[in-house]
């Protein structure tokens, strides 16, 4: 980010083009390799058309999944390089005039699940958040409308490199007469957010994405009047993939804001790879009938009891993690946390977690 001011627009464009060229060469090598492999497969299985088709699909996925993941990394690293404008350096985020009594003692930051497409949350989530906001103490401010899965301060439909693609996909999702096409478009949009969850949990790329997201959250907090040293605390509450993003950004947010940070996740799917030992507390609210959250425990080895030295297991054995189970709750839909039968119970669990004592500043390192 320091270098951003030194680069001219033409050189920014050149750098982006260069990055795309490098990726294209990589993809080209992959395609050539796949071509050779396909020749071998075709000669070996010339009579079995179905098998060949399956191989085609498998190989295509083998190329497309990494290619989509790699493309998703481009904006994060272009941002980190300073080729794109947007986020300031941590030292310039907050107003450093002497702190007066803070208007809010607690900032509750909501990070949505992978269904989030834009700043506005889906209607069910908005209704849930309004209900939660009504029940919060006056000293607690709910921060909502954060785009959890983009580091850029623009929506997906305005992204410089892929706006045309997302606009087309959103149009298909909303207007196409065929339900299957609508479903496929919705899955593709959510796949983008799933990839971001994957990046956050990746030990190579996670630190940079999580840092950028922490800067984005800090910027929002600064706009809302948060000031380091004002005695306020930050609570990140994440639903589904939002829980992974919360775990990823928490330690960076703690360092940037110099405030105690805790996490409340509900129906969370997270890796447990992140640095958790300096957090003020972690509460996970889970549904007894939530298959997605249960899948997260299998998909992420860091949460397996077989790896007792993982960050998650160390935090668990140190007693820093509280678990609250809600009987009969599913991941989404009519038995999900935003449904009428369960939302009040989830809100009650969040309020109970908020009321838990906060670890002393000596322990949090703030």
């Amino acid at each position, binding site marked *: 980010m320091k270098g951003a001011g030194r680069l001219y627009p033409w050189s920014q464009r*050149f750098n982006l083009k260069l990055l795309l060229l490098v990726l294209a060469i990589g993809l080209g*090598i992959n395609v*050539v390799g796949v071509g050779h492999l396909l020749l071998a497969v075709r000669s070996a299985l010339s009579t079995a058309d179905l098998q060949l088709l399956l191989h085609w699909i498998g190989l295509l996925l083998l190329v497309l*999944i990494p290619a989509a993941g790699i493309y998703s990394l481009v904006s994060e690293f272009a941002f980190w390089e300073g080729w794109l404008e947007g986020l300031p350096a941590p030292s310039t985020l907050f107003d450093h005039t002497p702190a007066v009594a803070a208007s809010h003692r607690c900032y509750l930051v909501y990070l949505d699940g992978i269904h989030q497409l834009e700043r506005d949350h889906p209607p069910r989530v908005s209704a849930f958040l309004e209900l939660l906001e009504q029940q919060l103490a006056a000293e607690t401010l709910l921060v909502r409308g954060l785009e959890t899965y983009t580091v850029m301060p623009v929506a997906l439909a305005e992204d410089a490199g892929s706006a045309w693609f997302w606009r087309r996909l959103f149009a298909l999702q909303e207007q196409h007469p065929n339900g299957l096409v609508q479903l496929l478009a919705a899955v593709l949009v959510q796949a983008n957010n799933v*990839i971001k969850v994957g990046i956050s949990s*990746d030990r*190579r790329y996670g630190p*940079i994405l999580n840092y950028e997201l922490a800067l984005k959250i800090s910027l929002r907090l600064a706009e809302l009047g948060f000031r380091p040293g004002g005695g306020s605390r930050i609570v990140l509450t994440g639903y589904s993939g939002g829980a992974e993003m919360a775990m990823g950004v928490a330690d960076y947010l703690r360092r940037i804001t110099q405030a105690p940070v805790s996490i409340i996740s509900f129906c969370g799917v997270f890796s447990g790879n992140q640095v958790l030992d300096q957090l003020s507390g972690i509460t996970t609210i889970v549904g007894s009938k939530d298959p997605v959250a249960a899948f997260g425990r299998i998909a992420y080895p860091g949460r397996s009891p077989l790896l007792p030295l993982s960050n998650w297991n160390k935090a668990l054995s140190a007693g820093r993690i509280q678990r609250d189970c809600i009987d009969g709750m599913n991941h989404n839909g009519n038995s999900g946390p935003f449904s009428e039968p369960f939302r009040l119970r989830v809100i009650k669990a969040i309020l109970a977690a908020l009321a838990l004592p906060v670890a002393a500043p000596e322990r949090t*390192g703030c």
Partner: protein
Amino acid sequence: MLHELERLLDGLGGWLIRADLGLGLLLVVGISMSLSHVFALFANRLAARQIIWRLVIDALVLAAAFLLTSSIDMVLLNLYGSNPVHPSAFVDGIASCLLPACFYVAVAAPYVGETMGLVIWVLMHLNVITFVHVRFDLPWDQALLLTTPGYLLAVLLVALLFRQSWQRGYAMLASELGQP
């Protein structure tokens, strides 16, 4: 003296011509591996020109590293194996075994990348063991023993090269954040 040097260079030229397929494949493997950690170079906030240079140099270093590990396999086979080994034929054979690493660029993918990397490394070693077993009529256990030192060296060299880049990137991130 000059004649001796000329003879050596002729020999080297002839070997390079005979082993051109293997050397070419090693270079492709090097490029693919080098591209797989392009984001580590971005994490270091290098300029565009520096990134290109690093990619080229890393590709050559990685190709040379695989050539070195192949040489170790060849020397061990010459010392302990029963059949004579011709260097160019051996490099060609070994390089074909490294074919899965042409896809190593996919290791750059988030989350699934490291698993793909692991699969590629295992496949490469299995290929080399099978090649040595079939080509030199060695029992499986001997083939495993003779090829493992070179393989371990390759893993170590690649891990060291990539780890250094990431560590520098994270140090830059830490310096931006300051101390807690």
